[in-house]
């Protein structure tokens, strides 16, 4: 057991660090720039709405594109992609090393991950050569941003419950329906979408997969305002949206299979999101006073903190175990599936507890609150969303039980019945 890089790994790390030192700003510590520490949506590609309205958002997007171009030129934008599409042709461990290094810097995030991490790889498998040549290089350089149009009002945890209609009309398809929880739809240039081409087939059999230009007539994007007051997601409405059959990926009715390619390419963990964890509450307890003095000296606080510490570090060391597997060329085990499950609830507990320690001042949101600014107030709201977005706690426990432990599936009412005969309530 040791934590040192191999010689090659060390060389790559140095390369990454050199690039970052020149091109990015080091992340500040907690008390200097508290807002930089505001929790970010941890699911892929959902940048927090920039405060300051549309103009500021546009500026942020431009900055992100500039950064991405630099990163792509240096070769770090798509380490795992083959060189022919502009990638680095690197290994998973190199991706991890780069991400670890980037984590210490303040760089734009949430714009390109879905394309490079999930949609690009899907096109590599299912697209034709022309498509690949046309679209893939621009995903990396950030010239074109992609979004993923999967979820629907009645297809959330039940991902395959998609109702979006795709009807064939000659050489074209006509899309009608609604997508939801679409990160980045408001700035994306292209999207990939799953739609139901045959409602009378079994649920997983009647789907077809397409890519499309987000400027295609009939597409309307509306932001969803969240509990936090900001908008990371969109609803996207499709009203007689016509796309050519050439934009189909995979066969008719093979949409679920293509979608699985996308889902299985959820990018490797790219370092922890700058969040709200043990370290933050540890700092807070050194400032806050409870009934018998500084919170950090209080027995109940200490007991709770210890449990959060072992959860937090336990996750970190679990990641080390995965990286070890990667660096040996193995596929990491299923350990990573526990990360969001543990992190989201921990964040909710930590936030709620920090507010408790502030006593009545915990009620006060916003920058007036002197302890770590509004970090824990934000965390209180953000964590409630984090327990749901990207797979609810319950879906994750099911995944662990079924895919990791091999326990039997729930009784499924929806496996043998044509989709349009399934009970679906009023949605």
């Amino acid at each position, binding site marked *: 057991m040791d934590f040192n890089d191999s010689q090659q790994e060390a060389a790559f790390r140095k390369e990454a660090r050199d690039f970052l030192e020149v091109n990015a700003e080091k992340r500040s510590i907690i008390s200097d720039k508290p807002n930089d520490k505001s929790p970010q949506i941890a699911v892929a590609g959902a940048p927090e709405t920039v405060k300051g309205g549309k103009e500021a958002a546009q500026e942020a997007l431009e900055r992100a594109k500039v950064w991405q171009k630099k990163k792509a030129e240096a070769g770090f934008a798509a380490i795992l992609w083959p060189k022919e599409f502009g990638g680095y042709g690197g290994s998973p461990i190199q991706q991890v090393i780069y991400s670890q290094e980037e984590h210490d810097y303040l760089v734009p995030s949430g714009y390109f991950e879905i394309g490079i991490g999930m949609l690009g790889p899907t096109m590599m498998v299912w697209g034709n050569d022309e498509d690949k040549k046309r679209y893939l290089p621009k995903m990396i350089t950030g010239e074109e941003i992609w979004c993923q149009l999967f979820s629907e009002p*009645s297809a959330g945890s039940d991902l395959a419950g998609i109702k979006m209609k795709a009807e064939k009309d000659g050489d074209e398809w006509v899309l009608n329906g609604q997508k939801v929880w679409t990160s980045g739809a408001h700035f994306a240039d292209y999207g990939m979408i799953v739609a139901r081409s045959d409602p009378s087939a079994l649920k997983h059999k009647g789907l077809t997969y397409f890519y499309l230009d987000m400027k295609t007539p009939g597409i309307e994007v509306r932001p*969803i305002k969240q509990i936090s007051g900001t908008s990371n997601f969109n609803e996207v409405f499709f009203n007689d949206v016509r796309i050519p059959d050439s934009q189909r990926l995979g066969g008719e009715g093979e949409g679920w299979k293509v979608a699985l390619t996308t889902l299985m390419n959820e990018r490797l963990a790219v370092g922890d999101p700058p969040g709200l964890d043990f370290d933050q509450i540890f700092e807070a307890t050194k400032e806050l006073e409870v009934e018998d003095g500084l919170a950090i000296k209080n027995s109940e606080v200490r007991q709770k903190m210890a449990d959060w510490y072992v959860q937090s570090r336990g996750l970190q060391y679990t990641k080390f175990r995965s990286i070890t597997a990667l660096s040996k060329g193995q596929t990491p085990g299923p350990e990573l599936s526990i990360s969001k499950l543990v992190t989201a609830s921990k964040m909710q507990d930590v936030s709620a507890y920090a507010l408790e320690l502030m*006593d009545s001042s915990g009620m006060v949101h*916003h920058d007036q609150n002197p302890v770590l600014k509004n970090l824990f107030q934000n965390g209180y709201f953000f964590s409630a969303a984090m327990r749901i977005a990207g797979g609810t*706690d319950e879906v994750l426990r099911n995944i662990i039980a079924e895919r990791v432990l091999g326990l039997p599936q729930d009784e499924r009412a929806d496996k043998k019945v044509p989709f349009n005969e399934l009970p679906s309530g009023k949605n």
Partner: protein
Amino acid sequence: MNFDFSDDQKLLRDQARKFLFDKCDRKSVRTILDDDQLHYHKELWSQISEMGWTGTAIPEEYGGLGLGMLELCVIAEELGRSLAPTPFSSSIYLFAEFIKNYGSEDQKKKFLPLIASGEKIGTFALSETNGTPKPSNVKTEYSSEKINGYKSPVSDGETADYLIIAANSDNKGNRNSLSLYIVDLHQDGVSKTSLETIDPTRPACSIKFENVKAELLGEQGMAWDMTENIFNRAAVLYSFEQVGGAQVSLDEAKKYSMERFAFGRQIGSFQALKHKMADMYVKIELARSNAYYGAWALSTDSNELPVAAAGARVSASDAFNYAAKENIQIHGGVGFTWDYDCHLFYRRSKLLSLNIGSTRQWRENLISNLEKRNIV
């Protein structure tokens, strides 16, 4: 054995529920949520004042209805259910109770009728810093008949006409150096700064005091004891608000889980969700029972009140926090949108478990009072 509200009290509850269902729907609540400039729902406040709710437990001689604390508990539960955006608790559970219990005859005559009629609004201010309030953290001073200092957060401070405030009457900075004072907030030297709370329908501000006139309430040096007693009384009332809010959170989770389908089934048929709702139910029933016990202690001026009040608050905070948080979870994606109402309860639940001291602090109170009772 009669551990229930009377038929009259239940009738009052039904009326209050019906009234608030009509007059305080979620749209009304959201007018306050969505507008930074609005601190409470004025029309609703007028209406509930006209109906006499504000005077429920204030004696008739001071302009109230002269009903009891049990009636106030019943109303509190309904205010909690409806998320009513009014300064009711600050003005009635706190300000009016302070005056009623500790005011001189003159003070009662002067303030209670104005509060009972809803014409004026009062509140209370103790905290000056982050963390658990302690006598040593109170820096605000009273000398030469003037208050100088700073309080934050002051619930409903922007709306309030009067304030009861804890300040040092000598320089010792200990428990016995603190007295309570009544301050008219409409005077020079009072400056308010809006604060954004985690539940904007229950606002707060900070207030700076520069040479502000104030009159003593109750005995000098007894601020801490009086505050503990009034907080105990208020804790019972708040626990009914919390139980009300928790029950609605469960009801709405249940409703959604039966309407929403996934994998060809009502999501409410999945054990993960059923058992979560069963746990909500358990916590709410325990909280309700603890709140009833608090109500009994409150209404009979029992010396069980300190223990009963702390038990009610701890149990109710736990139930509402849990129910509100898992209501979001059961709703899934829509649960964390602004448009769905889950977050209103999530906001309110946390605010209510912090406003008169954290649940943590009330657990501490509970055990302290159990120890005292054991010694007696």
